[in-house]
């Protein structure tokens, strides 16, 4: 609580926010590590300057992410670590049997997802990679997309890349998916006839009712949302956005959402991975 007050003071003596951020001067430091929440992406990126969703949140939401004990997402990270070491399926192997220490073997993975899978010859999200390995290597049943197990595992694996810059590739075979994701981003949908871009590119920093619109970055997923009182996946958030504009969401794990995930991940290239982040 004392930290929260201190941060508030820091924020209030900071410069007036140019794009309507809660406090542009706030720095995200977790367990002694500073995570990059602002990135000058240049002309190639339609946003120019990229901001993490963390910068748009109120101080008391921000501080929840600045201490791994206070971050409720860590309950799931710990569950993920247990699952990592638990033997499953006909092989009798755990993730650790083949991949060993996750802090080495999984380091950097979150930052490059979604990623092309040579064997399956398709673009795959982190969830897809996990389920593929469960089936191929463990002889286990795939987890449901939004199951506690999948969220725990993606949180645990994601944490191993915390602080590393997002760096997805849009070259080669990814290019086609990138274009598809970009199309989706600018396509108006639902009764309210809004595209992702209308809120998150044209109006970030503005208020939508009492809520502060972010750039819709995905560098902190899975995220612990106060509204959900729990964790959720990137595709759950997409689904929620589509419902908000009174549209019919695509399915989690669909090609559409995977393409959109690639496009959004690219827009955030350069921001530090924040998994597991905390949002309102």
């Amino acid at each position, binding site marked *: *609580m004392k930290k929260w007050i201190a941060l508030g003071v820091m924020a209030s003596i900071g410069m007036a926010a140019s794009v309507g951020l809660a406090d542009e001067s706030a720095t995200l430091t977790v367990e002694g590590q500073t995570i990059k929440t602002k990135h000058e992406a240049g002309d190639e990126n339609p946003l120019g300057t990229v901001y993490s969703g963390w910068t748009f949140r109120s101080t008391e939401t921000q501080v929840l992410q600045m201490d791994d*004990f*206070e971050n*409720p997402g*860590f*309950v*799931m990270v*710990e*569950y993920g670590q247990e699952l990592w070491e638990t033997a499953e399926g006909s092989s009798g192997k755990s993730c650790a049997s083949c991949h060993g220490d996750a802090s080495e073997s999984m380091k950097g993975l979150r930052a490059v997802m979604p990623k092309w899978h040579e064997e399956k010859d398709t673009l795959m999200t982190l969830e897809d990679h996990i389920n593929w390995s469960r089936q191929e290597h463990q002889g286990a049943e795939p987890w449901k997309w939004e199951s*506690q*197990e999948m969220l*725990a595992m993606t949180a645990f694996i994601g944490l191993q890349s915390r602080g590393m810059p997002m760096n997805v590739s849009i070259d080669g075979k990814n290019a086609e998916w990138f274009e598809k994701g970009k199309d989706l981003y600018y396509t108006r949908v639902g009764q309210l006839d809004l595209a992702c871009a209308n809120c998150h590119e044209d109006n970030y920093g503005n208020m939508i009712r009492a809520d502060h619109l972010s750039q819709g970055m995905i560098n902190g997923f899975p995220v612990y949302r106060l509204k959900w*009182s*729990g964790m959720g996946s990137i595709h759950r958030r997409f689904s929620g956005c589509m419902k908000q504009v009174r549209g019919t969401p695509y399915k989690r794990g669909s090609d559409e959402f995977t393409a959109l995930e690639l496009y959004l991940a690219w827009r955030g290239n350069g921001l530090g991975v924040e998994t597991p982040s905390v949002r309102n």
Partner: protein
Amino acid sequence: MAKVKPRVKVPRKAAPGDVITIKTLISHPMESGQRKDKKTGELIPRKIINRFDAKFEGEDIFSVDIAPAVSANPYFEFSVTVPGPGEFQFSWVDDDGSVYETKKKIKAA
């Protein structure tokens, strides 16, 4: 959350008389009894953690009687004057009668 699991943060060492802050959190949905099932429209029965106790070698430090208005994954932070090296005991009581316990030792600094 998948499982009910307590987490406690206590410094490893303290000198007798030191004041330390303890943070505790337990993974629990804290079902308030106010929510309705989206499919059936029926009220979801209340199931919360209704009591938390923190002791040191059996002696009371801090305890709470808890109503459904405490958030999911209930969090408590409080301070204690450490009498010396010994063991902290923490317990949480669920509406269903389950008791979740965890212990932490503290050494003399």
